[in-house]
């Protein structure tokens, strides 16, 4: 922060007028005032988190010496204290984020401890997934009444845990589809933060949790054919990536654009997995079977994600040249096409390998053009991963591997040489 002396020096030198100096000073003062508030908020959240977890651990001990009626009465005390604190925060201290988040978080854990204790006292055997989902749903109103983002994060974690565990016990059962509804219930809060606090840290954390939760769970919730799941993943990652690039998302302050990160890294990992020919041998379907499977929910979702991705491609690159489309954005439509035509090619994995290679080279090119070391290294990392897994791929003969490596290596030399010469020419032209 600038000191008063700095400002008076600038005013004296005639660089800024006194009015501007006052405004700048006021701005920094406001920022400095906000800092202790933030610290107070962090302490309130950490405090509530620790106290809440402490109550749960103490409850988990299961106190044998107390009678059933004492234990049931005691289980309600933290809930009532939490509710009183939340009521106070809601009607008296709504302007204080520390009060809102701290009391909401405390009540969240108190409710969890209460249900745990009752389950314990009566030996209720219900599985952990159902327990967690009842807990987070009972606390969902806190997200909207107290606008608590900490509870919103825990809610997302809770429903993700539910979706990932319930499917093992009840695959194909309608209860797995609760996840969609539970996921929809948190989106208004996400939208509220996006509209009202676009530069807040909590929104950045939600940017990470919301897409990751959906990405982790959607395929588990459906009884799906793996081949569609792969294409569905490619399209969903494409959608996430394109949202990151969309103009409605760009004004966000985020130092790291989380959506672009998840979309890009996820796409590369998916391609690396699919670059093994064994995967395709296992998954490939006969043409007739494939047509039958197109009536499944997993196909409907895959198609939906792909259409949404194409719409975003159109939205983001309307009126721009094809070459301006980012390399990662090309992957999902190509993958979708490959899934439909995979029985035509004898080795779909070769296409995936070429796609990865192209993705790596184009990323390096983008990094070189933008003079951005991060992007350049990311491209190199893609190529390195591809090379490493192919080097250890025992399915390809040594001779073939040797030839491929020689060709790619020579390509690198030529590319490097071309780029250096181009730079030299450019600098010559400039001088």
């Amino acid at each position: 922060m600038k000191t008063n002396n700095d400002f008076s020096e600038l005013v004296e030198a005639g660089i800024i007028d006194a009015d501007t100096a006052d405004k700048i000073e006021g701005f920094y003062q406001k920022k400095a005032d906000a800092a202790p508030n933030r610290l107070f908020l962090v302490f309130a959240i950490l405090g509530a988190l620790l106290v809440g977890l402490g109550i749960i651990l103490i409850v988990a001990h299961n106190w044998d010496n107390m009678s059933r009626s004492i234990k049931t009465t005691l289980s309600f005390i933290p809930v009532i204290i939490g509710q009183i604190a939340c009521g106070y925060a809601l009607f008296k201290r709504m302007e204080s984020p520390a009060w809102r988040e701290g009391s909401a978080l405390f009540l969240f854990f108190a409710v969890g401890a209460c249900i745990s204790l009752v389950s314990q006292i009566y030996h209720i055997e219900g599985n952990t997934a159902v327990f967690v989902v009842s807990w987070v749903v009972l606390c969902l109103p806190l997200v909207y009444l107290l606008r608590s983002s900490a509870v919103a994060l825990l809610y997302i974690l809770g429903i993700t845990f539910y979706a990932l565990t319930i499917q093992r016990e009840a695959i194909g059962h309608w209860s797995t589809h609760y996840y969609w509804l539970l996921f929809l219930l948190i989106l208004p809060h996400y939208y509220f933060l996006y509209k009202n606090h676009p530069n807040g840290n909590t929104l950045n954390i939600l940017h990470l949790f919301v897409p990751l939760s959906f990405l982790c769970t959607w395929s588990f919730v459906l009884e799906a054919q793996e081949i569609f799941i792969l294409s569905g993943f490619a399209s969903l990652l494409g959608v996430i990536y394109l949202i990151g690039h969309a103009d409605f998302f760009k004004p966000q302050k985020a130092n790291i654009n989380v959506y672009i990160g998840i979309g890009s890294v996820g796409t590369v990992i998916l391609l690396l997995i699919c670059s093994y020919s064994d995967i395709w041998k296992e998954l490939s379907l006969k043409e007739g079977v494939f047509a039958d499977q197109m009536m499944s929910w997993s196909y409907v979702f895959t198609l939906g994600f792909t259409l949404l991705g194409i719409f975003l491609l159109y939205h983001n690159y309307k009126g721009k040249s094809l070459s301006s489309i980012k390399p990662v954005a090309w992957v999902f439509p190509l993958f979708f096409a490959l899934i439909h035509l995979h029985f035509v090619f004898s080795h779909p994995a070769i296409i995936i390998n070429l796609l990865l290679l192209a993705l790596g080279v184009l990323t390096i090119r983008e990094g070189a053009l933008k003079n951005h070391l991060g992007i350049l290294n990311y491209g190199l990392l893609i190529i390195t991963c591809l090379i490493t897994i192919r080097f250890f791929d025992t399915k390809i003969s040594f001779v073939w591997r040797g030839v491929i490596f020689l060709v790619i290596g020579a390509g690198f030399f030529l590319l490097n040489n071309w780029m250096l010469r181009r730079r030299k020419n450019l600098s010559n032209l400039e001088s």
Partner: protein
Amino acid sequence: MNKKLLILVGFVLMVLFQLYAPAKMIWDRENVIKKGTEFHFLTRPVDPNDPFRGKYITLSYAPQHFPVSDFEEWSYRQKAYVTFDNDENGFAQIIGISKTAPTNTKNYARMEVRKRSNKDNQSLTVYPPFTRFYMEESKAYPAEKAYNKSARDSSSQTYAVVSIYEGVYVLKDVFIDGVPIGDVLREQ
């Protein structure tokens, strides 16, 4: 003013909802304990733990089979009303399974049934679901050891005492040779 009233109503509803859910759990179980009939189920415990609810003993039971005439009309893992009575040794046995709640007795519990078919008969199988008995954390492991000791002695019996009333059940205690497992540990 309207917004404030809406928030107040929302808050009151949340408070009631958060108190009602655990209170309903308690009320239902207390009702079973008060009015239900006790049955003894032969068991075999082992010791795991639950991150939220602490240590418990997992009880496993021998599955009980019940022949039915309308076998084809049952689906996999369907919920059904299972009626119990005591056998000649004083242990619970199934005397009826139906899709609707029986009207002639209150000794029935809502449980999942599985289908079992072989060349001799077609029957429904019930795995008793009251498999978790929570204990104070320091006692769960000794409880398992106490069981193992009693298991080596063929004359010894371990069983769970369960109250059943109008579809709901409550696991009340686990006994080793007629002594509650908590008392067995205290004696040791």
